[in-house]
């Protein structure tokens, strides 16, 4: 119990002191995971929407595969990206290993299936209602997909938040491809892992509480933006 109290007071003092290292770590976490979500959205939204709208052979198997890949273990993704980006790997010449870029790539791979799978479900439900009317208005396939994505924007925002939550909370992938280098690739989760391994559990838990706080702030902002959008366009 005293551990928890200590963790809580550590978290509060961390936030109040606005430690510059902590701010740097928070900003890098947001930048890496935010970038990963944007990239995952660029791929996952159209991909999920296309699978939601199209009917083709092997579609059911693809949907199963997509849904299953939402549960990809971060460590496995991290290892795959490491092997690709390692100097001895096929993309070693990029020199991306142990940089924030590598972390963005790994988290993008983790988040894209989530975005695509949840988008597929949302768009499939929407297209039941919209597809024939849109076709009768003369909308081409890409136009229909774009329209469905726009119509589903409120539920898709939740999808992106789910992806962001996964990215900002995972440690397995970023610690392998980022290396947890101080001031370069250290993010909230790898900092927590480091303090845990040093046995400084109150500091680790304090950082964890800060992370939870960030998640609440991000989700609160998103919720508020959704409310505004909902009032504006029903």
């Amino acid at each position, binding site marked *: 119990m005293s551990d928890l109290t200590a963790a809580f007071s550590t978290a509060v003092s961390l936030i109040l002191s606005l430690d510059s290292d902590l701010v740097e770590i928070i900003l890098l976490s947001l930048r890496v995971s935010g970038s990963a979500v944007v990239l995952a959205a660029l791929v996952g939204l159209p991909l999920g929407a296309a699978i939601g709208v199209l009917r083709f052979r092997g579609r059911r198997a693809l949907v199963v595969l997509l849904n299953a890949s939402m549960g990809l273990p971060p460590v496995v993704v991290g290892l795959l990206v490491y092997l690709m980006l390692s100097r001895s790997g096929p993309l070693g010449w990029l020199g991306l290993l142990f940089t924030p870029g590598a972390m963005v790539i790994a988290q993008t791979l983790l988040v894209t299936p989530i975005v695509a799978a949840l988008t597929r479900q949302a768009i499939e439900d929407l297209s039941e209602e919209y597809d024939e*009317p849109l076709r009768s*208005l003369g909308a081409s396939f890409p136009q229909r997909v774009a329209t469905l994505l726009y119509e589903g924007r409120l539920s898709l925002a939740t999808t992106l938040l789910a992806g962001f939550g996964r990215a900002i909370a995972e440690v397995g992938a970023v610690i392998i491809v980022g290396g947890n280098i101080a001031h370069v690739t250290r993010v909230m989760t790898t900092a927590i892992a480091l303090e845990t391994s040093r046995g400084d559990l109150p500091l680790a838990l304090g950082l964890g509480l800060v992370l939870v706080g960030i998640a609440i702030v991000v989700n609160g902002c998103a919720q508020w933006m959704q409310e505004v959008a909902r009032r504006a366009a029903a």
Partner: protein
Amino acid sequence: MPQPDPLTGRAQATRRSAGAQLDRLHILPLRLEGVVLERRGVRLLDELSFQLERGPCSVILGPNGAGKTLALRVCNGLLPPDAGRVIWDGPDAHQAARGRALVFQRPMLLRRSAWANVDYALRLRRIPKPERDQRIETVLRETRLLTLASRPARQLSGGEQQRLALARAWAMDPSVLFLDEPAAALDPGSTRALEEAIRAVRASGTKIVMTTHDLAQAERMADEILFLHQGRLLEQTPAADFFAGPRTDEARAFLKGEVL
């Protein structure tokens, strides 16, 4: 002429005349030849053949499950028939998809303003903005929705939503406008307002083809009746003749309100 591809004609520039009136494509008459639609061994449309000419308001009448909605979907290229042909004619038949419009029983409105819903359809046709604005204003005024133009479409009443769907279809100035049970869920006042709007569309020279199971509405609107029963066309006659004395037992029973 085989069933036209709904996507054809996109590459061609839209011909326009001066003013808000778009240059209408001419794709009628429409001919169905022996159209068959089967699902799980059941014939939902059974050798359906008829011809629809320019001019009169054609009402497809029949009990629930007669295949009225399916017939409209086949005409609009949304369902490929299992046998038979749908043939568009006229000088612009190769662009049939652009010359027709369909209003669904449950209006599909986008999550944006009433104005933007009509604008969406016109943008799909790549019509320039000044012309779009003029056209939207015209159809919204004619359907008495202009004062609601900036309201979110999905917050309108049922009758207003159905009129908006009609206005959106009309904005594209189709040669033929199909309506599927447009007043099925409306109260008498809303129904009257909608029927007025449909008459306005008809007065603009657009051919109206609508389905209904409502006899009174059919009598008010129809110039000719196509009576459908169990996927087969039993009668195609001028409306006055049909209501004076239908030729088939099924139609007589339907007129008397008996369960078929």
